[in-house]
């Protein structure tokens, strides 16, 4: 029972990070029909940007800020202007393939300019335990959960409770009508790319102390978050959150109760079941547009 509690906490902490990345997937899809297969590498890169800032002499807090800003410039603005905009007019599939190429490019560039070896990365949460319901729970797990939940709550508040958020939703749901009623659709789309850049940078900050900074660390994350987004519902932010948490817990339970070798297969089997019986995802809404 104690083991199950530990697994649930660890799974929720990992799942919360998957959720951040998966939310980015859904935001980009909703506003610009972009399926970003480089999303995992987008999580890997900010950690290296922060490390580079620290190597240049910046303290950790400043490196985090610089990393976030550079992520917004490179992975938000740069990604949209240099890759998505030119490729989008050719359709969803060429753009998806272009993001696959981008993933390879980012990985190789990090390998080339930093190292193929893993590097340590400091944690924003101190080590130590607290007792919850008689169980020792690590501060790191709690910290990851809290930061991820705050980010998601902040985002959903922005989307649902502010005029800006309503404009973003309008731009996502029907850009033509949104334009007629005066919503600056292009600016709203750019904003979602910037939000995605912040989310992946945050995920990078939370996951890298555990996974270590390595050029290949985005592969697992990208795949898990993609599955989470589909399982939860690719067109719903709340679906991506639920999907992320579910996949995180499922992955940990599978590793413990099935086997380490088959742990990666269990979320995929779950994905197949969801696609067969509820193709729009657990919390997604059915729509006619096909992926």
């Amino acid at each position, binding site marked *: 029972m104690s083991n199950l509690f530990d697994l649930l906490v660890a799974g929720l902490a990992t799942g919360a990070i998957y959720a951040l990345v998966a939310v980015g997937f859904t935001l980009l899809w909703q506003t610009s029909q972009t399926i970003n297969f480089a999303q995992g590498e987008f999580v890997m890169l900010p950690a290296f940007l922060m490390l580079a800032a620290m190597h240049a002499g910046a303290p950790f807090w400043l490196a985090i800020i610089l990393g976030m800003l550079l992520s917004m410039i490179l992975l938000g603005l740069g990604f949209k202007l240099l890759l998505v905009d030119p490729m989008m007019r050719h359709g969803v599939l060429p753009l998806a393939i272009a993001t696959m190429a981008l993933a390879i490019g980012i990985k190789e560039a990090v390998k080339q300019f930093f190292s193929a070896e893993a590097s340590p990365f400091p944690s924003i949460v101190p080590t130590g335990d607290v007792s919850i319901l008689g169980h020792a729970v690590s501060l790191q*797990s709690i910290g990851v959960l809290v930061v991820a939940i705050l980010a998601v709550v902040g985002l959903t508040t922005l989307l649902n409770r502010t005029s800006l958020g309503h404009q973003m939703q309008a731009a996502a749901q029907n850009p033509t009508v949104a334009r007629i009623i005066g919503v600056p659709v292009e600016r709203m789309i750019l904003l979602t790319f910037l939000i995605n850049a912040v989310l992946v940078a945050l995920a990078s900050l939370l996951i890298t102390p555990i*996974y*270590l900074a390595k050029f290949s660390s985005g592969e697992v994350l990208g795949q898990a978050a993609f599955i989470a987004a589909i399982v939860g519902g690719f067109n719903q932010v709340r679906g991506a959150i639920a999907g992320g948490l579910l996949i995180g817990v499922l992955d940990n339970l599978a590793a413990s109760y099935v086997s380490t070798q088959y742990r990666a297969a269990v979320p995929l089997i779950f994905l197949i079941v969801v696609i067969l019986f509820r193709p729009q995802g657990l919390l997604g809404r059915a729509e006619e547009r096909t992926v």
Partner: protein
Amino acid sequence: MRSTILAGALLAFATATGVHAQAIKLANVAELSGGGATVGTNWKNGIDLAIEEINAKGGVLGRKLEVSHADSQSNPGVARAQVQKALDAEPYVLLGPGYSGSVKVTAPLAAEAGIAQIMGGEAAELTQAGNKFLFRTSFGQQSSMPKVAKYIHDDMKAKTVAVVWVNNDFGRGGRDMVTKELERLGSKVVADLSTEAGQADFAADVGKIKAANPDAVFVYLNEEESARILKELKRQGVTAPLMGETTLIGQKVIELAGDAANGARGHVGLTTDAPVDLVKQFREKFSKKYNYVPDHNGLKGYLAVYMVKATTEKMGKVDPKKFADTLHGLTIMAADEPGILMDVTFSDTGDIDRQSFLVEVVEGKQVVKQVLPKVK
């Protein structure tokens, strides 16, 4: 006529000098990227440092050493292709790979070509297949695991042990050896956990260790995974003493795991913290050249090149066909060849006999607790 003879003589002299000065070509195939990048990069840097030193002192038998580096990408399939390519260029000796799985699939190629292969793999089976061209740079598991099991049983007084191993040739070989020895000594394996190479998340594995509540945990993973599990063990508050081999307490692991590495213990055949003057000098030279402290793989690469030098000088000629025969049974004394760092003897199977160490990580540094002497 005289001018023709003179020209001919000059040409012959030039050709002879050219042949004489021709470099001795070594080929290195190592894990320069992928999961084993730490292993391969250290190994490569050790090789380069040794070659630079040897060439600065006039080379081997008056000939410079040259090495080509190829990346196995930590993948046995790629390693095999790279070794075949390297052998096609007819090197004097093949160096690497470091991963046992890659050594296993490449050793038959080198043996078929009659080229000696000096490698970093530690799986027990590698030198038990009758290959006459394969040589170790460190202990095989059949030498190290009995010492590890004895330490867990006698010194740690562990009656129950959790064994965590990586599911590849290296991990499986170590797990089989240590489990057999632990059971022979009377310690019970209460958790037998297989993990995957490159695994990032160890929360579930550590959860199983916690549930088994062992007296000690034996961790036998590659370097990066070792660092990740050390962090997770600390995160989940596992307090059982940790024992491993070189891959648990190497410099890179300490750097990656930080505080979480403190208290981990391990048996190491090679460590840059060894209380041996020549090893300390090596560490200083390496750190100065590459700006980081090497792990045991840096030592292995360095020793591999000095094995080539000592064996060639013993033969008195550069003869790839006789190299393996000469190295079998050879004892190289550090007093005669300082680059070999510690006295070492090579068996007929290519295994080594050398002193070894039991170390503990204390405040981010390896501290040698015991020196285990050379067997013969």
